[in-house]
């Protein structure tokens, strides 16, 4: 098992929640949005995106429903739930704390 799997996993969840927070999106859209928002730095491993989506839905942070995509195809859209919003806020805070701490450590000479 990858030693940092948990951290990475948690991060992906956070990115997903953030990506969906503006509007409901389908899976492919989420992967594109993350890539876009990170200015192409973060490329989501698409193989782990869907298990992550599934996991997040199972935890009740996202709601999934079938709808029609921009090019008129049936697609599964994910929408942030109230619990998801709370989770996003909390995770964001945690992440800021964490990254701030790491940054502080790295900044020390």
């Amino acid at each position, binding site marked *: 098992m990858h030693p940092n799997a948990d951290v990475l996993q948690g991060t992906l969840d956070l990115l997903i929640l953030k990506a969906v927070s503006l509007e409901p999106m*389908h*899976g*492919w859209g989420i*992967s*594109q949005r993350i890539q876009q928002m990170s200015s192409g730095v973060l490329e989501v*491993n*698409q*193989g*782990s995106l*869907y*298990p992550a989506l*599934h996991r997040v839905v199972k935890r009740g942070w996202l709601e999934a429903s*079938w709808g029609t*995509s921009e090019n008129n*195809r*049936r*697609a*599964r859209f994910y929408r942030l739930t109230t619990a998801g919003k709370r989770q996003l806020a909390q995770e964001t805070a945690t992440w800021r704390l964490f990254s701030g701490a790491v940054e502080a450590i790295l900044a020390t000479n």
Partner: protein
Amino acid sequence: MSFLNELARRVRGRLGREPAANLGDEVRFHLDMEAQALERAGLTPDAARAEAHRKFGGVDRYTEELHDERGGRVVEWLAKDTRYAIRIARRFPAFTAIVLLTLGIAIGANTAIFSVVDTVLLRPLPFPEGDRLVLLYAQNPDKSIIRFSVSYADYLDWRKQTKGFTDIAAFASTSLSFVTGDDAQRLSGMAVTSNFFDVLGARPQFGRVFHDGDAATETDNEVILANGFWQRQFGSDSTIVGRPIKIGASVRTVIGVLPPDFSLVGNPIDAITVFTPASIPNVESHAQHMLSVVGRLRPGVALAAAQQDLSAVAARIAEANPPIAGWNANVFLVRDELVRGLKNPLFVLLAAAGLVLLIGCINVANLLLTRSALREREVALRQALGASRVRLVSQLLVESALLAIGGALLGLIIAKLTLRVILRVAPTGLLPGTIGLNARVLGFALGLAALTTIVVGLWPALSVTRLRLARSLRDGGRSSSGGVRTLRTRRSLVVAETSLALVLLICAGLVLQSLQRMLGVDPGFQPDHVVAMRVSLSGPRYNDTTQVQFFRDLQSRLEGRGGIDAVAAANTAPISAGGINAPIRLIGMPARAGEKLMGPTTAITPGYFRTLGMRLVGGRDIAWSDGRPMLVVNESAARRYWPGQNAIGKHIAFGDRDTIGLEVVGVVVDAHVRGLTTDAPAMIYMAYEGAARIARTMTIVARGRGDVGAVVATTKQAVREIDPALPLYNAQSVTQIIEQSMGQPRLNTILLSFFALVAVVLAVIGIYGVVSYSVTQRTQEIGVRMALGARQNDVLRLVLREGAALAAIGVAIGVVGAFVATPLIRSWLFGIERTDAPTIIVTAVGLVMTALAASYLPARRASKVDPLVAMRGD
């Protein structure tokens, strides 16, 4: 319980709103979008598609993972668990063999008994709405007669006046001779009224049957064949309909063949061969009881209501006809009548088999507990590696399911063998030969296997996976507190199975002794070397005089020929229930007011007592030269009818008008002529001349030095010399008849004893197992004791005491249990009380001793413990 939640979630996931195909849809959508984007970026469609797949990182892996999340892997799990279980089973061959054998015997015993129950009790009658069919009888409460034949006049009046039945039909067994060429063969047939098949709702396999209102049938000499007879005699020739066959003196036309499942009320299947229209003499008398009556309850009419209606009608008839004053009528469901003698034994045997299964399950559960204790480490390790509890429990359940299914398969084989024994030991006609393993029986066996899996598997599985893994890993599963808890559980289990085994053992002991006593009964005559054969003197050739002449002829031709020493005849075979029961009056004795004497009477020819080896204690035998019919009574009759007087010279009158009566010329010893287990009744033996008119079918008895076949052949030869068209049938040695009369008690006893034996063996294995286990648990303690000065004998005693204590508690409960259970077998007992103290004491002490013997091995092992090794622990 968390694993229940998990299970529920899995089930929801599986049945959930999203069909599995949609997952594929979502992935496909993603791939399409990606491919389009790549195309826009300048790739060819093919390349774009390939790149999209690559980026996604393996579609299969992804769907597989989701699949697993939704419980889709159950099949794979099962396959994997099964392979694992087989590997485990192979790794412990002795354990596997013991479990399979235990379950095999237990399930086999239950399956065998169930297939009998299935055929006898559960299978519906082979007629439409067969549970509305009833049998009607004459009854007489004053004479404690519950089921008696019905007179034709009664039948007609019942049919006309009762309202509870759609219709009722009458039938009577007949004896016909079937002639093919030179050979004559005796058939038992059934004379039926024309509405008989309508009442039953029976259809022919082909041809036709009689129907109500076929006025012509009685004179047309038509006959319907039973399926078995048609197969045997005519090789299933389907062109038989319309052909003439010769029955007795007349030629009859075959009009139909009945289906194979047509079986008649109260008759062994296959015994009846042909059905003829009843040519019932239009007897006016209500007192001539000669018919059986079957009826169909009107829809919506309950049995009790039909009985009430019938009783009212019968009471009116009896009132109008003084000769049948006091007679009434009874109605019973055919279904109940068929199983009257079998219900109790089958229930008891099924219960006994059930106990064996219970004991077997307890044992297997015990073994699994032991093994799962050994496997605690393995389970803990797998838990630590992330296996969920559901996963572990399901794996352990697969293991026990596999054992149970193996046991069930073995059980089916054992059941088949057991059934073969049952059918061989059962007296002819008791059980239909069609008993076998059918789909329903198979289902029953599998159901037992499933039940067993849950009973023996779930508990150990839950108990072992409940362990807290950290402690288990640390302790190595050896001296954990779980061990103490399971030891307590296991002890109670062993006590339970010991008590159950004792219940069975006591019942078996009582029944065995009963059988022994039955077989030890002195029949009062010498059955060895006596052969009985039936003959029917019917047809124009025979009348009262020629019938008597026939037997006189036969005796003079046969005695001294071919090793035959003595020949005579009687209207009933020795050891057969039934026979004539005639109202009698004692001439010259004051009749007690209102008392009607009934005298069990047998018609005999001279030499009967000599042939059967019954000693005359006074007077003489009847003789051909008597001139008028004389009587011989047995000692009981002499004592009962003329207490304190000499019976010889007294007169007994049969019927109301006779004022002189027949003279008693001899007194013979009591004999159990009507069954070994029924007391010798006060018998009257009447010279055949007096009964020739009513007894046309007689049993020839011949005492010969050769084997049965030789005696029969010689007798046949002599009969042929007198009348070539007269067949002999039902030839049997009297010892055989006695054997058969013991058939059902013997069968019951064999099965019950077998079950008891299995139960005891299992209980002893159980005691051995739990004592060994406790020795293993207490090794350290034993080491300490020995280090502190306990000697080997002390340790031996310590362990033996444990085994004895378990057995003793079990036995104490068992004795109480037996007291509750034995009323069920009251009717099986003969010459012994159900509370027979010696039986209870011997079985109880025996069981405790056996338990001690079983504890001896582990006790010896304990006493050989090296204190140093033991105290160091593990």
